[in-house]
């Protein structure tokens, strides 16, 4: 198939349509508005529904309604809007409904700015809202990967009856890359016996998140937790880039990972033994990647490179579990790590730190 040149935000939209999503509810916010613009045009072409809600509170609850009624639904926003959605996301996770939420991160806290950051990592990977729940979090790092992963996002949501969050940043949403479109027709939406879609002669279905008796709420929490354990065991995804023989392994996702790939290329050209682990699932965090790389015994250090003051590093440390030192390099508030600065940091570690 011929390649097309697409913006990241557009790829989220086209990918969703090719994954069989026919319901989008959202509210504009920079830097993800192109996703809404794209779907406003595209949804009517495929007989789908695009609805601009009055707020993020409403859009996530429209997703709750549509998903509970059996539809494949999604919404998207950026940090401040995702914060407003947390109540609804918690409800959807509790009610075990499938849906996809896209967060194109922007600078924060507060109103912040519209520059690319990765500072919603904690919010995304720790559930985000109230209560004990998790979202499956996918972090693409190229436009091609956006369109490939969003289909997987819908399938995972369906498989585990759990919301899936796709975490990108402003740069990933705004940049253009050529990519190959996947086949449109072979998405599969399984039957939904749990959907409250009108009894139509069948049994009564209730979409509910109220468990007023603590004993029952504990049981439901346990059920959710068992599901999360299964996801942790089965769904860790990552990419190893030049990790063979690497003494220093960078850890980065999304845009930061793209920059780090450049760093690795540059360092390898200079004969420096540097590699990269790029987590693709942020939750479940790819602990297995670290176990397998540490078994090789060549690695001396890890360096977590993030567009935040250090959030993913906590998961890196948990995964490394004291077996090697973990260092941090980050830029914040919408500033991007520059290739040469990361290289400087790498050289400093390789030359100055005792292994």
């Amino acid at each position: 198939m011929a390649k097309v040149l697409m913006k990241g935000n557009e790829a989220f939209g086209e990918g969703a349509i090719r994954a069989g999503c026919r319901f989008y509810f959202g509210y504009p916010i920079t830097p993800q508005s192109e996703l809404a613009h794209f779907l406003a045009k595209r949804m009517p072409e495929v007989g789908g529904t695009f609805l601009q809600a009055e707020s993020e509170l409403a859009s996530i609850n429209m997703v709750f309604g549509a998903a509970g009624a059996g539809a494949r639904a999604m919404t998207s926003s950026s940090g401040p809007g995702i914060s407003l959605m947390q109540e609804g996301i918690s409800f959807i996770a509790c009610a075990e409904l499938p849906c996809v939420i896209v967060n194109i991160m922007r600078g924060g806290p507060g109103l912040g700015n519209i520059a690319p950051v990765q500072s919603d990592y904690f919010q995304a990977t720790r559930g985000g809202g109230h209560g004990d729940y998790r979202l499956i979090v996918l972090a693409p790092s190229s436009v091609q990967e956006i369109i490939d992963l969003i289909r997987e996002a819908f399938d995972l949501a369906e498989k585990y009856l759990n919301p899936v969050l796709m975490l990108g940043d402003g740069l990933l949403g705004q940049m253009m890359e050529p990519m190959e479109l996947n086949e449109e027709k072979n998405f599969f939406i399984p039957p939904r016996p749990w959907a409250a879609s009108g009894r139509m002669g069948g049994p009564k279905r209730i979409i509910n998140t109220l468990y007023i008796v603590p004993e029952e709420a504990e049981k439901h929490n346990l059920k959710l937790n068992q599901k999360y354990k299964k996801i942790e065991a089965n769904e860790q995804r990552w990419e190893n880039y030049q990790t063979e023989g690497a003494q220093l392994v960078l850890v980065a996702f999304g845009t930061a990972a793209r920059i780090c790939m450049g760093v690795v290329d540059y360092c390898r050209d200079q004969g420096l033994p540097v590699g990269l682990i790029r987590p693709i699932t942020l939750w479940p965090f790819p602990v297995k990647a670290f176990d397998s790389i540490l078994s090789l015994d060549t690695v001396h250090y890890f360096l977590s490179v993030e567009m935040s003051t250090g959030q993913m590093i906590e998961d890196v440390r948990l995964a490394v579990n004291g077996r090697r030192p973990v260092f941090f390099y980050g830029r914040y508030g919408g500033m991007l790590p520059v290739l040469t600065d990361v290289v400087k940091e790498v050289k400093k570690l390789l030359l100055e730190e005792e292994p």
Partner: protein
Amino acid sequence: MFKKVFARTKALEDVPFHFCPGCTHGIIHRLIAEAIEELNIFEQTIGVCPVGCAVFAYNYFACDIFQAAHGRAPAVATGIKRALPDRVVFTYQGDGDLAAIGMGEIIHAAARGEKISVFFINNSVYGMTGGQMAPTTLPGQITATTPYGRDREINGNPIKVCEMLSVIEGTAYVARVSVHNPASIIKAKKAIKKAFQVQLRGLGFALVEILSTCPTNWGLSPAEALNWLAENLIAYYPLGDFKIPKEEAKNV
């Protein structure tokens, strides 16, 4: 031979209500269920219940049903109706749910002319959380959070939901009814049925505000509460149709 003159509606489950004795939620549940049965729409109806005293409505209505976050029922109903346009979707919301935290959702669902039926239960007080001030609490009315009576200077003015929504273009039918005596209950039933019919005919957004009692938080016996409703609530919130479908308006 005996002739059966009264039977339980199949749109309600055969379980006891949790509502306090004398609370009119039970009557309203029953009226909605009867309307669903009489219009023969039970199999395709999907309800959305609120947070508030009616939070357990999903245990009572026998149709498919959602339990929504506080105030978000109109957004949830929008999602359902857009996904399944041939189903009948209704929300059941109290005054805190609809007129305070969920004001944004209800106004925009109305403005979009969302084809849903909204039943708005107004008893001028927060029942669930212990009798605090509602957006519809009357001036001077004592509640847990207005111990000296609602003062307009401090707490502002009550919101008249029907009057407000009737000027929005997307609404097709807006009416206020009460359930304080048999005559008003018959009228309420008619309005509820009409709200479903407006949806079935695809005319747009329909809302019925139902004045209701809360003997427990008003501190009145059930009989006194009905009188208080008639004397005070109706005086402030006049009953009647605020908007009827255009085609009917022509005939009048």
